[in-house]
């Protein structure tokens, strides 16, 4: 344990990120990690149906993005960004309820795993057709621009989704209409079992977005929560100030397979091990917090607090009622037919 931690590189030392920010990020990445670990167990026990998609290795990106937004901003996280939901105010209980398909889950059992939104927190629900939400956040940002509201809309695009037409149409529309949208480009190396090199020739997403669509794009080590927050805050504030859409490419590695049924055996195992040992986003933040003066005992207490929060959330979610089949038709239409 001690040698592993010694190998971990601490997060960046940027002065604009406070100790309070680092503690908040640490809680988010821990919750993300622990909820997904618990969901994985539930899945293997047959208590979670469908599939489970995790963001292991990428927790810092969603955490930093959700945390960088202001209270009135909106976002559309995808399926490796649980920490973004948590940063926007979604609780572990709500996340568990959705995984368990409960009647009081955010989707009332209509959709599973990471496919949920939170209208009250400005979170749009994920759709499986990755890329579709890129134009949607552009439209939200267009509404802000039309109404002169200093708000920002943010979404994520994986390296796989970068191959879709929707992303091109959305990025282009954002650039032409100069709307306050922020695109977080999740460069995790893999789209299901297809490496980025088989998705595109120019694998630098920031370069593509800046050169191709004229959207300023930074590139950051997405395993470093602090650096990622610095870049995202800058992007969000530039977008808010009227500078048009912004992008941040977060370079990480997807540590798990595409979903629970996929062990990722086709990946470079040495690369996976090295990333897990040296660039694990949770441990990098822990290493940085040690530099802040936190003792092992204090770090352990934070881990325990997060684990307790997750356990309590699961317990509460498990007590929730199953959805009632009589409600299937509810809400198909918002305006009832006359």
């Amino acid at each position, binding site marked *: 344990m001690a040698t592993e931690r010694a190998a971990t590189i601490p997060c960046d030392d940027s002065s604009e990120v406070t100790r309070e920010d680092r503690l908040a990020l640490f809680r988010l990445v821990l919750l993300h990690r622990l909820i997904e670990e618990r969901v994985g167990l539930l899945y293997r026990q047959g208590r979670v149906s469908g599939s489970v998609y995790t963001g292991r290795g990428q927790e810092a990106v969603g955490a930093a993005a959700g945390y960088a937004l202001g209270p009135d901003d*909106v976002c559309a996280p995808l399926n490796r960004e649980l920490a973004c939901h948590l940063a926007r105010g979604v609780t572990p209980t709500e996340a568990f309820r959705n995984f368990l398909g409960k009647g009081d889950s*955010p*989707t009332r059992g*209509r*959709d599973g795993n990471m*496919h*949920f*939104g*939170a*209208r009250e927190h400005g979170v*749009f*629900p994920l*759709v*499986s*057709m990755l890329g*579709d*939400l*890129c*134009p*949607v*956040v*552009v*439209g*939200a*940002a*267009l*509404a*802000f621009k*039309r109404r002169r509201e200093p708000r920002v*809309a943010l979404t994520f695009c994986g390296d796989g989704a970068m191959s879709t*037409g*929707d992303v091109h*149409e*959305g990025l*282009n*529309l954002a650039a*032409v*209409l100069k709307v306050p949208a922020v695109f977080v480009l999740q460069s995790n190396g893999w789209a299901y079992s297809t490496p980025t090199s088989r998705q595109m020739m120019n694998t630098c997403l920031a370069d593509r977005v800046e050169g191709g669509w004229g959207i300023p794009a930074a590139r950051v080590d997405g395993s470093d929560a602090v650096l990622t927050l610095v870049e995202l805050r800058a992007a969000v504030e530039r977008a808010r100030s009227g500078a048009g859409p912004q992008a941040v490419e977060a370079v990480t590695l997807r540590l798990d397979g595409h979903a629970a049924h996929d062990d990722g055996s086709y990946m470079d195992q040495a690369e996976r091990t090295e990333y897990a040992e040296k660039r694990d986003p949770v441990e990098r933040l822990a290493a940085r917090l040690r530099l802040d003066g936190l003792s092992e005992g204090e770090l352990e207490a934070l881990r325990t607090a997060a684990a307790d929060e997750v356990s309590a959330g699961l317990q509460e979610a498990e007590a929730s009622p199953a959805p009632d089949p009589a409600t299937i038709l*509810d*809400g*198909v*239409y*918002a*305006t009832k*037919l*006359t």
Partner: protein
Amino acid sequence: MAEVTYLEAIRTAMADAMRDDERVFLMGEDVGHFGGPFGVSKGLLDEFGAERVIDTPIAEEGFVGAAFGAAWMGERPIAELQFADFISCAFDSIVTVGAKTHWRSGIKLPVVIRSPFGGGVRGGPFHASCPEGFFIGTAGLKVVCPGSVEDAYGLLRSAIEDDDPVLYFEHKALYRRLKAEAPESTLRTPIGRACIARPGSDVTVVAYGAMVDIALRAAGALESEASVEVLDLRTVWPLDGEAILASLARTSRVCVLQEASSSIGAAGAVLSLIAREGFELLDAPPLLIAAPIAPVPFAPELEDAYIPSVERVVEELRRLGGY
């Protein structure tokens, strides 16, 4: 009262809605200074400015998706497609984001997608289709096809005020063909309700879009022989089953008339309903008059043979009456 065309009724409905409600705006390709390919939005840029009449890049999936995003934030956008055929480009966003979001999350997406559809203008396979059938049967969507000047106005106003995504298929052959007294600005055509365009007692013709006009002409031609009721569906999804069955109860004979190929359009849903719930009301097998199962052809000789004509409807209704 001044007379207006079907096209002017659509334009007026947009302008009136934009005057009444700040949240309403229009976006699409060439809708601004050019006024759209058919001139439907002509003049709107001058009155409402470039922030409410937004020219977009050629990206149907992009701007339809953006319309949903703006609606998420409480706006009430109208997205205009140049031709309904291009709705295939935006299909994913419509059925994935548009149709399922409220049911999954409670987020309302009040978007109107205006699509000029139908033939008779020598548009060929990519500018004259009737793609409404792709969406009929899809939970979460509403699909309307005005067949009169009054409904061109009333359905558009209702669609804009509706909290669900509404696909508004306007028939481009009717743009200047239909003229009527200018509708009152208070007119709203209820979504989900058919209307009797012409009452009758011997046979019901269920029609929508440009086929309503064809049905009315055929009914006129048959006046001395039979009393033909024309039921204008107006909303093709969800269907007004009650109105269809009530008409059938009066006439006992039914013809479904549509411009789309017989394999698609509203016919399947209407005939399924009649088979399930109206079987005992029938004195004759239901008749379907529709385009053949082929793309819309370009050459005048071919297109004229393809789209159901008044003559064909008259002839087939005579056969139905004699069953």
